[in-house]
């Protein structure tokens, strides 16, 4: 069901970019690509420069005091109106589902968290469900397989949007991998606390990716891609990781981050 905005569809679409600390530090091309795609479909993008990290690593490891401090900063960094779009299912899910837990005993912050949670979208979700994009107008070409990030798929319930977009790119031969919805083993702090289990899971994911014969594996979360890409680069497998935003932006964008 399309998200109803109550706004004039021909009017400006105000979007604040939540670029995520991970992409900021490791893959700025993902952020640039996100802006490019959003602007292509008529969004007026602004980037709140005081944003840092949503606090998910602290929240997920049980360190709520620190997570709450970061969440508070996040909530104050973003404006009171317009959409918030991010190239990460995981970070969007943190704001949407994690913040209400963090602020369950603070009614005012809770209300603000809920209100922001209503306005936050992962990129593919925003394009398909809010803007109704059917053709991403990307000139990317290659054989591509898609990994469902756990938090995009099960956290936000976004399953079809990225696939619809990928299938609509004329130059892409889209191929599903087996167990595309199986966790890649990243899990944030999990990958540091139990690295051997994490790697075992990543190996299985990479096996499934290789079995498709795709040249690119893409996903809506950079965390998964850094994890999967770390194993691919260590062994030297003939497949590249590339963020969904970079594919949607097209072959000119984000090249330096691929693989």
């Amino acid at each position, binding site marked *: 069901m399309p998200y109803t905005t109550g706004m004039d569809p021909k009017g400006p679409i105000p979007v604040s970019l939540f670029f995520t600390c991970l992409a900021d530090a490791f*893959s700025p091309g993902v*952020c*640039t690509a996100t802006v490019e795609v959003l602007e292509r479909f008529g969004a007026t993008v602004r980037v709140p420069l005081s944003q840092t990290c949503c606090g998910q690593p602290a929240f997920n490891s049980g360190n709520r005091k620190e997570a709450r401090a970061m969440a508070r900063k996040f909530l104050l960094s973003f404006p009171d109106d317009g959409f918030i779009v991010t190239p990460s299912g995981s970070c969007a899910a943190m704001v949407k589902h994690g913040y209400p837990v963090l602020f369950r005993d603070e009614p005012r912050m809770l209300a603000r968290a809920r209100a922001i949670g209503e306005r936050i979208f992962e990129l593919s979700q925003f394009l398909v469900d809010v803007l109704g994009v059917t053709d991403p107008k990307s000139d990317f070409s290659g054989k591509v397989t898609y990994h469902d990030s756990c938090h995009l798929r099960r956290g936000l319930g976004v399953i079809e949007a990225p696939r619809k977009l990928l299938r609509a790119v004329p130059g892409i031969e889209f191929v599903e991998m087996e167990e595309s919805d199986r966790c890649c083993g990243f899990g944030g702090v999990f990958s540091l606390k139990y690295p051997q289990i994490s790697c075992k899971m990543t190996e299985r994911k990479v096996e499934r990716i290789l079995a498709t014969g795709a040249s690119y594996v893409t996903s809506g979360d950079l965390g998964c891609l850094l994890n999967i*890409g770390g194993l691919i680069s260590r062994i030297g497998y003939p497949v590249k990781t590339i963020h969904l935003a970079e594919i949607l932006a097209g072959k000119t964008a984000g090249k330096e981050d691929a693989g």
Partner: protein
Amino acid sequence: MELNANAFGRNARKALLDKTLQEALGRTTGRFQAHRDAAVAALPEFEATRERASRIKGDVLDHLDTYLARFIEEAEKRGTIVHVARDAAQAREIAARIAWEEGITLAVKSKSMASEEVSFNEALQGAGVTVVESDLGEFIIQLAGEAPSHIIAPAVHKTREEISLLFERHLGEPRTDSIPELVGMARKHLRAKFLSAGMGVSGGNFLVADTGSVVLVTNEGNGRMGTVLPRVHLAVVGIEKVIPRMADLPTFLRLLPRSASGQVISSYVSIVTGTRRAGDPEGPERMHLLLLDCGRSAILEGKYREILKCIRCAACLNSCPVYQSVGGHAYGWVYSGPIGAVLTPLLVGLPEAAALPDASTLCGACADVCPVKIPLPDFLLELRSDAREQGLKTPGEIAAMKGYAGVMKRAGLLEAIERIAGVLGQFFTKGKGISGLPYPFSGWTERRDFPAPAAEPFRKQWKIKRGVTR
């Protein structure tokens, strides 16, 4: 059962290197999951049934005292002698006393996870009773001297080769790799036990309050035989297993076998209602029910109450990529997988099992399949937070978190650090991945590269491009 949950990391590393275990896990866990998914897909009203089951269980937990009282009243009316054990020690004491008073020397037992919580077999053996596990999987691991590694498939970690070896050593049977032959050997050996045992011990999947019945969901017929042939039947069941009405049972029977093994219905569903009545062709003369509290009342009072909705189907284990990677023994107690990672700390105390809530990527696959909609990932998060509050985190982790939160307080500071890291990263790695990092990141780079930080973070790029000076 001996508790070793805080050794999860060490146990898991051992499990990952165990080739036989890995082979066994690879063979079975995927199959369980595929069967479950197919069975669920073939039942259009699965979601609605799941919703109803979760609601019924929620109602039970809201009024557990009332439903339990009703159940006990109805069960006693039908000749069942009901005992309640506050903790494991009391449960063992009651079990031993029942065996002694009934003059039991041999007991056949069908599968019961609850009995593992209280080291039931050891209690009876201490009272001079020989206990023979009659579920095929339990029979196998009893011969091996091991604990169950899965809620419904206790010997899932064993390959048929290992099982044949055990049967050769303990039963004097010839080696075979035929599963039907192995089953035949176990059956032959067990038949004699069923006929001579004075007491049959069972677990219980549901306790029906309005009829006082104990419901057993099994596949091998051993549960049926063990509850009708011996003179005495003793059922060991957790207090949370009560459901209000017999009319609620079909809801759960629709969910349990489908979620557990992908079966539409299990081979046997036994509804045991009291002792043998006049005119009954079979059934026990004496029936005891040992209700286990063992920490459940305490859970009921707190924020994890919903964990008591669990019907022990093991779908969360089968769907969990961590369980699939390391098997059940790594979790170091009775329950494994996501349910174990939550339930074990709640039953034995978080300090004794704080390693378990961390044993998950929070991927959410467990919550997706849970037939009673327990929010397992939320509970894992909550337990991790409890661990911090109870002082169970390492000073290193807390210091790291404080440092990280401190940096994230100021975008300018973060940007400065990113830019320094970017310069160093580019200098040392030439933009390629990093192949070796110091602790606590060393685990990551053992078999994976870590990305090099970008030369210039996005925030800086944006400022330059858009001419933002702030």
